C-alpha cells in the first residue's frame, strides 16, 4: 500500500487509488468506533494541533474524536483566543506552533490558501479542514465514503449538487473528488449561487431546474443555504428558494427509487429540504455522513502520519 502524501489540502493531487486507500482504511477503523472501548494506541506520542481560526463545531469535534480514538495528543488552538485576533500573522503563529514540536496541524481558516502557507512555514503535516471558499477535502472524503457504502462504486454514478456551489468550499473538493472517482456531476443552482466556471471544478452539467435533473440522479447532494444574509442576498427569499430548489416530498416521485440524499450539515429544515426528505429512512444518509467523518479522519491522520510503513499499527 503506497501512500505518499504529506498533506491533505488539494484533493486533485490524490489519485483514485489514494482515495480508495483512505476509504478502505476508514472502513477498517470503523470497527474501532463500534467497540465498547473506542480507543487504539495507533498515534500514541503524536501531537496534533487543531488550529481553528474561524468558528467550527462539527468539523472540529469530528477531528478531535478521531485524534482521541487514535491516542494522539491534541491541542486546540484558535477561536476567539487566537493570537491572530491580537494581530499576529498566520506565519508568526505557525512558527510558534513549530516551537511546540508538533507533528500535524489541522487548519480551518476563512481565507483561501491558508493551509498552503502553513506547509511553507512548518515541517508538520497539514490537513485542510476548510479554507475560505477553496476546499474542504475531509468533507469530500467522508461524502465519498457514505456514497461508496450505499452505492458500492462511483463509476458512472450520477451525482447532483444543489445549492450554493459558488461560495462552497465543500464543492471545491467534492466535485474534483467525484470526478477522480469516475462519477458524473451536475450542479443545480440559480446563477447567483454558481461559480464563474463550474466546468473548472469538474462539473459536467449545469442546470437551473431541480425537477429536470432529479429523475437522473443516483445521489442528491444538498448544500447548506446561509439564512443570515439579506442585503445583497443571492435570491429574493428563502420561500422562493425552497420552492425552486428545495428537496420536498412533492418532488419524491421524480427521484429514482434508490436515490440517496446527502448534506454536509448543519441542515436547514424548510430551506434545502423538508423534514420528510431530511429524515427519510431509506434515502437520507446525513447522519451516516457524520459518522463517516470520524472514520475518514482517523484514516487520514493514520495514513499521513506514516501508516503501517512507520511501524504504526491499527
Amino acid at each position: 500500500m503506497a501512500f505518499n502524501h504529506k498533506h491533505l489540502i488539494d484533493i486533485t493531487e490524490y489519485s483514485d487509488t489514494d482515495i480508495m486507500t483512505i476509504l478502505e482504511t476508514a472502513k477498517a477503523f470503523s470497527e474501532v468506533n463500534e467497540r465498547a472501548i473506542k480507543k487504539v494506541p495507533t498515534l500514541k506520542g503524536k501531537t496534533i494541533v487543531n488550529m481553528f481560526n474561524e468558528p467550527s463545531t462539527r468539523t472540529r469535534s469530528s477531528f478531535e474524536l478521531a485524534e482521541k480514538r487514535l491516542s494522539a495528543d491534541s491541542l486546540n488552538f484558535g477561536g476567539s483566543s487566537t493570537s491572530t485576533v491580537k494581530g499576529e500573522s498566520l506565519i508568526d503563529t505557525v512558527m510558534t506552533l513549530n516551537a511546540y514540536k508538533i507533528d500535524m496541524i489541522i487548519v480551518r481558516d476563512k481565507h483561501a490558501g491558508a493551509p498552503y502557507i502553513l506547509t511553507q512555514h512548518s515541517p508538520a503535516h497539514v490537513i485542510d479542514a476548510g479554507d475560505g471558499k477553496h476546499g474542504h477535502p475531509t468533507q469530500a472524503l467522508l461524502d465519498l465514503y457514505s456514497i461508496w457504502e450505499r452505492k458500492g462504486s462511483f463509476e458512472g454514478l450520477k451525482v447532483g449538487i444543489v445549492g450554493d456551489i459558488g461560495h462552497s468550499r465543500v464543492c471545491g473538493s467534492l466535485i474534483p473528488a467525484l470526478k477522480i472517482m469516475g462519477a458524473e456531476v451536475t450542479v443545480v443552482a440559480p446563477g447567483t449561487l454558481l461559480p464563474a466556471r463550474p466546468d473548472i471544478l469538474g462539473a459536467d452539467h449545469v442546470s437551473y431546474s431541480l425537477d429536470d435533473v432529479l429523475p437522473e440522479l443516483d445521489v442528491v447532494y444538498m448544500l447548506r443555504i446561509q439564512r443570515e444574509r439579506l442585503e445583497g442576498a443571492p435570491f429574493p427569499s428563502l420561500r422562493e428558494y425552497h420552492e425552486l430548489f428545495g428537496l420536498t416530498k412533492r418532488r419524491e416521485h421524480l427521484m429514482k427509487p434508490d436515490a440517496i440524499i446527502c448534506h454536509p450539515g448543519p441542515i436547514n429544515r424548510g430551506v434545502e429540504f423538508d423534514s420528510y426528505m431530511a429524515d427519510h429512512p431509506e434515502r437520507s444518509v446525513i447522519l451516516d455522513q457524520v459518522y463517516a467523518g470520524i472514520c475518514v479522519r482517523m484514516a487520514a491522520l493514520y495514513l499521513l502520519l506514516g501508516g503501517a510503513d512507520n511501524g504504526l499499527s491499527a
Partner: protein
Amino acid sequence: MAFLLKSAHVVDPAAGIDGVVDVKIENDRIVEVGEDLSADGAEVLDLSGKVLVPGLVDMHVHLREPGYEHKGTIESETRAAAKGGMTGVCSMPNTDPVTDNGVTIEYVKSVAEREGHCRVFPSGAMTRGLKGEIISEMGDMVAHGAVAFTDDGRGVQGAGMLRRAMDYGKMFGKVFMSHCQDEDLVGDGQVNEGVVSTRLGLLGWPAEGEEIQIARDIAVARLTGAKLHIQHISTARGLELVRAAKAEGLEVTCEATPHHMFLTEDAIGETYDTSLKVNPPLRTAEDAAAIVAGVIDGTVDAIVTDHAPHADWEKAREFELAPFGMTGIEASLALVNTNLVKTGKIDYGRMVELMSIAPRRILGVDAVSIQPGSLADITVFDPEVTWTVGADGYESKANNCGFAGTEVTGRATDVFVGGKRTLTDGVIC
C-alpha cells in the same frame, strides 16, 4: 559639467535619429549631436554597443511618501526608478495624507528635489481624500506643480462626480487619469473572474467591472471635453473602447503595464503567490495578447509599471488579506526589451514613444529629444546583457516584484537627468 557620450546607437524618432552618433552635454542641456564630436574638455564615455534614448518616464508610480514610508520613500523608489533607467516618474496621490492639496504637492516636490534620483511629476487627487465626494483644490495643486489628476487606487464611482471634476478642472489643461473599477460590481474581487477565481475559491474581479467604467469615462470625457487617460488597461474589450474613442477623435489615451502584457491569471497557482495580486488583476492570455497588439498598433500610448511597493510582512499573508500591487520599475525596460523588442514586435523607436515621448506629452511636461537645446535627460542601456530579476535584490525598499526569478535581456547602464548623472555603469550615483 560636460560629457561626451560616444558611439552609442542613438534612437529618437522625434529627432529622426536611428544610428550611431555622439551626443555632447553641457550643464543641463544637450549641445551637440553628430559624428566624431571632439571632447574639448568634456568627460568622455565610450558607449559602443549601448543604446541611447531620450530619458524614460514611468507615468504611474507609487512613491508611498508621505505616510507609507515603511513601504517605500521618495528616495528609495526614485532610486529604484534610476536603476531601471528612468529619468522621471509621475507619482500617485494615494498617500497619507492624500496628495489632494497644494501643500502636499509642494512636500512631494521638495523631498524629491532634495533626495530624489529622478524627476518627480506629482499627480493630485481628483476628489478630496480620494472619497469621490468633493472636487479637490486642483487650481492650488497646479500652482504648486501637479501635472495630472487621478483617484488612482479606486477610481471615481459616481458619473456625476466625475463630470463635476472634469468640467471644473479642464480649465487647467491637465489630463484626468482614470483607475477604472466599478466597486458595486467588483466588490471584494481578488483575481480575474473565471478559471482562476473558481479554482482558487477567490472572489472574482470581472473584466466588465473595468470595461463599464472605461466606457463611462470616455462618455464623460466626450460630454466635458476633458483630456482622459485610462490607467493600467487590462482587458481586450476595454482596449477596444479606447480604440473607438480615438477613432472618434476624442482626447483619450491609455497606458499598459508589463504585468498585464507578460503575465496572465494562469501564473496564480495553488501557491497563492501574493506578489501576483494586483489591481486590476492579471487577466487571460487573450487579454494580454490584445494589450500587446494595442502596443504595436498604437492604441496603447504609454508603458508604465504601476510600481506599488509593499513591506514584506504585508505581502506575506493570506491572499485575501494581502494588499494589491507589485513593484516593477527596475525591470520594465528589460521586460519590454525582452518581450517586445527582441521578439521583433516593436522597434526601439516605438519603445521610445511608449516609454519617453508619450508619457511626457500626456503629462504636459517638457519634451526631451536627442538634439541641441533639449534638456539632457538621457537613458543609456545595454541591450544584450542578460540578468535575472531580483537575483541581486532591489534598490526599491520593497521586494514584491511579480517577475522575480524571470531571466531578462537588457539593462540600464547610465542615466542623466538634466545633465547630472544618476546612474553610472549600472550603479546609483
